[in-house]
């Protein structure tokens, strides 16, 4: 009973949030003929920046190209963060303009879940492994927990890309999924 009430309240506030998003200037801005295609192009460039730098770092953690010291390769990570920021911003543009297309879309839920796991994973990396890994010289293996973190990171980001690509195929109202309703 309590769950039903909570779910109902959550659904109600999410609906109101979606409605509010659709009334914003940003939602209006995204309705022109060029805004959406340009934002999508930027979203794909951001994706490549992220996977190209963070992905290489993950591969090095996992044992590829061991001659590269991890601390040196880490200097490319800001480009990955820049890619992530581009994608957050363009992602917000998409969400604002078509909130219902995402909110009730299972591919979107999985995408957010994958990003959340990646977020926990990267927090674990910087709190437990970063210092150890920074001292590693050329040819040295990362410790096992760091290798696992690298594998989880790569898997999460590939999953984020896959879910992003699947969004189109699970769009409401043709497909409707809502675990909180």
């Amino acid at each position, binding site marked *: 009973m309590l769950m039903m009430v909570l779910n109902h309240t959550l659904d109600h506030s999410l609906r109101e949030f979606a409605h509010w998003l659709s009334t914003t200037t940003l939602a209006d801005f995204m309705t022109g003929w060029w805004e959406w295609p340009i934002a999508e192009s930027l979203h794909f*460039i951001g994706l*490549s920046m992220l996977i*190209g*730098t963070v992905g290489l770092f993950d591969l090095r953690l996992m044992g*590829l190209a061991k*001659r590269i010291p991890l*601390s040196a390769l880490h200097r490319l990570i800001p*480009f990955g963060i820049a890619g992530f920021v581009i994608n957050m911003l363009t992602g917000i543009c998409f969400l604002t303009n078509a909130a219902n297309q995402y909110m009730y879309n299972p591919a979107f839920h999985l995408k957010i879940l994958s990003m959340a796991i990646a977020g926990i994973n990267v927090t674990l990396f910087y709190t437990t492994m970063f210092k150890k890994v920074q001292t590693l010289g050329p040819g040295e293996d990362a410790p096992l927990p760091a290798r696992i973190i690298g594998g989880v990171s790569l898997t999460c980001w590939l999953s984020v*890309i896959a879910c992003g690509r699947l969004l189109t195929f699970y769009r409401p109202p043709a497909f409707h999924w809502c675990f909180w309703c």
Partner: protein
Amino acid sequence: MFAFPFILILHAWGMGIIAGGNAAIDLRILGFAPRVPLSAMAKFYPVMWFGFVINAISGFLLLMGYPTKALTNPVFYLKLLCIAAGMVLMSRLRRRVVPEKKPASPQGKVMAALSLIVWAGAIVSGRLLAYTCKYLLGDLQC
């Protein structure tokens, strides 16, 4: 039924690997992350070739799905041109710049900058294919 979305996923993965990997190497050649030994980045080339093969195959399958859609669109040829230029630059950089011990020559840096531009061009033109097509299949308009 499941094939088309799956091929699209592969195509996006391959894109991230090849464009992103090239961008990382280009940035290193341009002077970022200077402590990364450039010659050691050669280890990433097989990964990028893997991305290229994935995308050549998945791209061919996507083309077979909607041949008219791509072939009647000039943007598609722009995309192919960008990819061809990107691949030529990638192998040239691999032969002339990546093995060098000293910092890259000005020509090497120009090639790296061009590489960044053409891979971004390939991504943008690929994305715009969905918006610029005229015919979907046969005479059927987009």
